[in-house]
């Protein structure tokens, strides 16, 4: 349980904000066996943001430090569906 790092992501994940978030997150990417990215407060996301999330999951898988996308907000779900991207958890059916 202690091996997992849960990181909240900011409200905006767009072309303008992703480079900064990328720099911040990159350093910690390999310091924990697992990283969970909390997407619950993401209000604004574009293709650059969605691509970055998918890259983090893919890169984590390559390096043996799995990254999971958790609690995706509605905008995140919408753009993943629009772009046919994998990596989101199952939708809450309750």
């Amino acid at each position, binding site marked *: 349980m202690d091996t997992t790092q849960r990181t909240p992501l900011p409200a905006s994940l767009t072309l303008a904000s992703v480079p900064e978030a990328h720099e911040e997150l990159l350093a910690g990417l390999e310091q924990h066996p697992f990283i969970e990215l909390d997407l619950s407060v993401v209000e604004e996301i574009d293709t650059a943001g969605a691509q970055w999330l*998918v890259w983090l999951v893919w890169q984590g898988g390559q390096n043996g430090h799995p990254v999971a996308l958790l609690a995706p907000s509605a905008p995140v779900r919408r753009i993943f569906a629009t*772009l046919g991207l994998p990596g989101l958890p199952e939708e809450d059916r309750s």
Partner: protein
Amino acid sequence: MNLDLALKAFLEEADELLEQMESLLLGTTQAALSGDDLNALFRVMHTLKGSAGIFGFDYLVGFAHEAESVLDRVREGTQPLDASLVALLLACHDHVKACIAAWVSGQAIDEEEGRPLRQRLSFLLETPESAPVVDSATEPARRWRIQVGFGPDILRDGMEPTEIFAYLGSLVSIESIVADLSGLPGRDSFDPCRCYLGFDLLVSGEVDEPTLSGAFGFVQDCSSVRISPVTDSDAPPQDEPAGDDGGDDLAAVPLPIAAKVAQGHRMVKVEASRIDQMIDLVGELVIASSAASLLAQRHHDAELGETASQIAVLVEAIRSRVLGMRMVEIGDIFGRFPRLVRDLSVETGKPVRLVVHGSETELDKSMVDRLGEPLTHLLRNAIDHGIEAAEVRAAAGKPLEGTVTLSARHEAGSIVIELTDDGGGMDVGKILARARERGLIGATEIVSESDILALIFLPGFSTATQVTALSGRGVGMDAVRQAIDDLRGTIDMTTRPGAGSSFRLRLPLTLAIIDGFLVRVAGNAFVVPLDRVVECLEIRASDVPEEAFGYIELRGRVLPLVVLSGFLGLERRAVRRRNVVVVRFGERQAGLVVDDLEGECQIVVKPLGGLFRHLKALSGSTILGNGAVALILDVSALIDAATHDAARRAGGSAIRGTASPLQEQGGG
């Protein structure tokens, strides 16, 4: 035709098809299925119907025909694949599976179970077809496949693919879209402002190609757009990815279901036993290659030595590729758990979420096959007994939905699988009281928490009347441990009252060929798996304990020692200095006192005969390059023995009933 072989092939194919069907249906909760997926779903029932006909399995022919007809409507777009149809198709999947199992074991088919399902399928077929998803009441819709590889700078240039697709959606109906991730670069070259994505879309509508092409007008200069008509229900060609960056890394990318299904078409099925035979032969090749190297050394023949080392490099390359053929993703097992969690969640009335990490982690196919059952046991226990009822969670201030996390990762030549729940945890005090009551632990003995928790893996510990917090936790736990033992793995658990429990399984990646470290004790050769070796030391003979166990101080820490000559009942040689191989297993370390260190070697693991299976300190044998036999030491068991002895000396106590390997060794 050899009917036995044909039947075997049918059963294997049915297993695979049904697994694919389940995975596709469960995937609908994440995203709508693509045209490829719908075709694949249809083909499952279609193929089963055809194969069942060959064997005169008439019931399945009839049942699959009805399911196939409904699926035909789904892929044509005249029957929506909504939640209720997904549930019906999952029930059909279960019924077909049960029918095949009954049929092959000569039992009666439970047609009663299938009757309501057939009624619901018939009802759907009798209902007039709804209008197709595409809006064309008069003329048949046209379907197009669009493959787009966006240029790297389109995002910087202010173009937004989602807006392009939104415009496209106003012209046609987008049936499916699958992103192509094969262009994603590694860490050093990833620039978040560049676009690395490609897309593969299936659209339908009364439009012509120039109109579709126009939707990509703003990006056409810097992107590749390929538009091709799709005729009938043919699956679109899968010859190349849409991106223009090449697809060399395609296999390494976690692809969505549609892409995985398509990849399956490029695979060649090989019987597992053929790969096993090949691994055996490669094993012999490794031994022969080592023998050639030894000969070259012995005769001081430099040219022969060079050739032998070239052969060794090639043999190593063949070895890793052949072993790689047997490596499969652990996702093959993990993939069945969402269904189990969904069913158990309904059954127990507890909302439970399954989070899976690392399903792309690879391990030997033979291990994967044998891991399904113990993991299912652990998962079932976690939901049945670990996760509390929603009202209990609410009262404790926890989220109503319980979470079970399943993860896999590689760690120092092993695979580590962890299953964690955020349930109520276990009450160690109550387990201890129960153990004392049953005489497993003396009334005044002091034992560590990990030793107490290890009790739940004892056979029968949980079969009698239970303390409430433990109720059911032990069911099948001894079977779980046995299964993990058989795979030469270990299982540990931790628990926090009120916060949940965590099981950690550590398993070797493969059981066939390993890198070893060769040592000698009283002239006998022993091999320590190389990934367990930390370092080698030399100590004075006077520092070596007289008995089988002892300890030394190493850089300020106590290192338990196992004197192999004493432990194995071999002659103890009178020398001034002795060698110690420091080994580790998980977080524990111990030193093995040996006579000589011979260095690294690559060995083919041969299982011990039935007569020697109970000797837990030995995990197998191997034949060295010179033809001599060497025994492989089981580091985990040796460390267990050493730490138990250290605990005994320190005044603690090993728990009765969990005999140390030393005791077994002595008894054997």
